[in-house]
């Protein structure tokens, strides 16, 4: 199953120095007088798996939501392969959302729909769009959905109601949904924060596998430093909406961590 769009090359390793494919320039988001994200600038290369660390309230979720345009930026640019995502609207915006699949902390599946239908919602922005309003998906798309479920080990649950699954299972269904979108980018907002260690492992492993096998760039908000160390090549750390660290995971020493998390107590929580 081909899950990468034809134009993105299959890059395998941390491509430091390669052409950045996603660039944020001066990205800012204010809510009234509160600045959640403050002039964030960074560049991500194709195929990287990047962890975004920081305390809760540091602006991680807002940042990811802006990239997907679920939230609009107050200022700044989001450039993907040269196009400013922040200025997109209409059909182009919807197409972008399809290409930047999101994984949520609470899975955000539709509980009463079957697992299969949930995965199929990932195909809503693919043509033909109108019949899908009435539940008509082509056999081709159904096969694609089942392939994606099988890749995550969830095909046997295809006809069950989504809310009858455990947390770890639901997140894997959410990843299948992301896969069938044929995305160029996966934005994972605290994907394992609601899961136990075993399921966290399975989900992070799945994300890593997708990143390596299909070359899809992954940006992952994480609440735990060991997780970042175990699964990602590069770390961006946010504190009060600003980038305070941007580099390889190895460069994160204790002093830096203390400044990110602010206090020893918060730091131990992140472990």
């Amino acid at each position, binding site marked *: 199953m081909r899950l990468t769009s034809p134009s993105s090359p299959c890059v395998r390793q941390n491509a430091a120095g390669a052409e950045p494919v996603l660039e944020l320039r001066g990205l800012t988001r204010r809510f009234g007088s509160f600045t959640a994200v403050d002039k964030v600038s960074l560049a991500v290369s194709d195929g990287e798996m990047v962890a975004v660390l920081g305390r809760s309230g540091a602006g991680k979720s807002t940042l990811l939501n802006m990239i997907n345009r679920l939230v609009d930026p107050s200022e700044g640019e989001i450039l993907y392969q040269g196009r400013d995502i922040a200025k997109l609207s209409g059909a182009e915006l919807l*197409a972008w959302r399809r290409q930047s699949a999101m994984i949520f902390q609470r*899975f955000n*599946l*539709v*509980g009463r729909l079957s697992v299969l239908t949930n995965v199929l919602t990932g195909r*809503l922005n693919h043509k033909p769009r109108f019949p899908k309003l009435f539940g008509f998906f082509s056999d081709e798309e159904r096969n694609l959905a089942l392939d994606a479920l099988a890749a995550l080990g969830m095909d046997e649950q295809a006809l069950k109601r989504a809310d009858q699954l455990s947390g770890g299972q639901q997140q894997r269904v959410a990843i299948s949904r992301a896969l069938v979108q044929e995305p160029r980018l996966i934005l994972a907002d605290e994907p394992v924060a609601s899961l136990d260690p075993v399921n966290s492992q399975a989900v992070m492993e799945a994300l890593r596998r997708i990143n390596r096998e299909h070359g899809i760039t992954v940006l992952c908000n994480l609440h735990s430093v060991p997780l970042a160390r175990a699964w990602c090549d590069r770390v961006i750390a946010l504190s009060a909406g600003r980038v305070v660290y941007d580099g390889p995971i190895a460069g994160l020493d204790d002093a830096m961590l203390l400044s990110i998390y602010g206090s020893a107590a918060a730091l131990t929580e992140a472990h």
Partner: protein
Amino acid sequence: MANAVPQSAARTRFAEAWAKHKRARRQQWLFGIAILIVLTAISAWLGEVSLTLLWERLPRFGSYFGRMVPELAWATLWGDLAYWYWNGWHWLASLWQTVLIALYATMFGVVLAYVFSFLAARNLSPVPWVAVAARRILEVARTVPELVFAVLFVFAFGIGPLAGVLAIGLHSFGALGKLFGDVAENIDPEPLRGVRATGASWAQTMVYGATPQLAPDYLSYGLLRLEINVRAASILGFVGAGGIGQDLYRAIKNFDHTDISAIALMLIAAVMLIDAICGWLRGRVIGQESLRAL
């Protein structure tokens, strides 16, 4: 028990505050009751309420009901019943038409209200001012009485059940639209975000993200509306909009008291039957929500 537990300063402060709060609450209640009494007095005056009149006229209750009771004797029971229901088959047909009117009007109202509810819900509507406008439209539709719509539609579409279906349908659209909108404003936003994040259009998000959460409540309200609409359909015939109302009106105008009771009984039986069916269906709809996947 005095001084078994030493009173701290905080506890005395709390006790005082609590007492003050209770006093304020009691004052509020008394104020409310006073207003109620005043309003009742005004209403009684405006409404020309006269309990003595009611007392005087109590026997009329009896005589009215008495005239409605047909003459039934054990010996001639079948004959008497046949006489009482001399027009029974025609009335049954009218009753059937009444139910049909209610059914189609409810379907019409439910479908329109379903679509409209997404516009009227502040959390779902595509642009904020649309929600305000939608709510106003719904308000007009459910405030104008069905009978008034019926007269208007009889004028426009002619005498017959079509006017009735449209009148009740429009009114139901208003009532259901408001209820649906309220339900829609309280749904879980997370599944919506999940669907929206895939690049789905607004309509697709409503179908896949919102509708599964809303379906059991919408169906339940729809069935409830059917029960109400059967009652409404029964009187539309008064103005020529079809159904058994016409027969009832004729019986009342001609003082055919036993006809009134005959029709009323059939009507009550039909209403009870429909209520029972709708109640059962509603139970299954709510129960089903814990079972199958959509």
